[in-house]
């Protein structure tokens, strides 16, 4: 009758198609509501930001990651733990500059855009997965790291891979104790 001391959090699963179709319906509806691609991108980013600020708590609770000491460790955790946990893919990480605050995540397969072959006519500037950028930005901000997250390459726009660029803006403060993503 006694409860186990440490119960693993349950992963409730849903059908991937349902999730992908829901995201697609969201983007399609935003496209109908707003004429300009920039507006759609901006609202997707805002929505993603709201999701990211909440999702990071769930992520930190489930994954029990250790404290990070550098930006590259943070990026590795985002790529290998967070993406794997929530989207089931593991993007590869590329570092762009010597001061080690600009990184890219290269996704060769994007599950959110599985059924979308190409962007509709007249929507060539649309970042279909801009929600992901907002999620990453919101999550990093909740652990007190300001970052700029954008799409550098997008397969839907004709590039060979999908690339998300993350640029950390403020210097990492190691003296204060806090859990870092």
């Amino acid at each position: 009758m006694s409860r186990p001391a440490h119960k693993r959090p349950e992963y409730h699963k849903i059908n991937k198609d349902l999730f992908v179709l829901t995201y697609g319906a969201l983007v399609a509806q935003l496209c109908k509501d707003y004429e300009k691609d920039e507006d759609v991108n901006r609202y997707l980013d805002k929505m993603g930001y709201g999701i990211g600020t909440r999702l990071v708590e769930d992520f930190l609770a489930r994954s029990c990651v250790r404290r990070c000491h550098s930006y590259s460790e943070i990026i590795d955790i985002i790529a290998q733990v967070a993406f794997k946990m929530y989207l089931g893919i593991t993007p590869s990480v590329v570092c762009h500059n010597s001061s080690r605050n600009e990184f890219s995540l290269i996704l060769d397969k994007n599950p959110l855009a599985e059924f979308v072959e190409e962007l509709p006519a007249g929507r060539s500037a649309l970042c279909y997965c801009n929600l992901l950028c907002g999620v990453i930005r919101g999550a990093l901000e909740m652990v007190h790291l300001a970052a700029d997250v954008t799409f550098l390459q997008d397969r839907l726009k004709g590039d060979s891979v999908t690339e998300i660029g993350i640029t950390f803006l403020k210097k990492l403060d190691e003296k204060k104790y806090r859990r870092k993503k």
Partner: protein
Amino acid sequence: MAVCIAVIAKENYPLYIRSTPTENELKFHYMVHTSLDVVDEKISAMGKALVDQRELYLGLLYPTEDYKVYGYVTNSKVKFVMVVDSSNTALRDNEIRSMFRKLHNSYTDVMCNPFYNPGDRIQSRAFENMVTSMMIQVC
């Protein structure tokens, strides 16, 4: 090897129709159009029996001297019509069924595209490639 493949919407207008370019396209359009009557006849005939037993594959709709026309209807009343060369006797029923299944799967993928509105003409490249592979498939 199919010479003409058509996808017809519930309201009986074509969503996608393609025939091998060497032949007279209008003739195939006409054949597909006339086959729709046969499709409706088969659907209504089957409707009297239990709906559960209704199969999606309709089989040979009607033969002409040069061609044979096969039909397949989905539960959402979208019809696939395929015209094959009569001289191609190597094509068995199973192969026609599998071709229709592939068509149905590709059509489902087109429907899942959030930017595709049901009732629009099908312009998906993946669908075109699949149809091309069926038409130039050498038996």
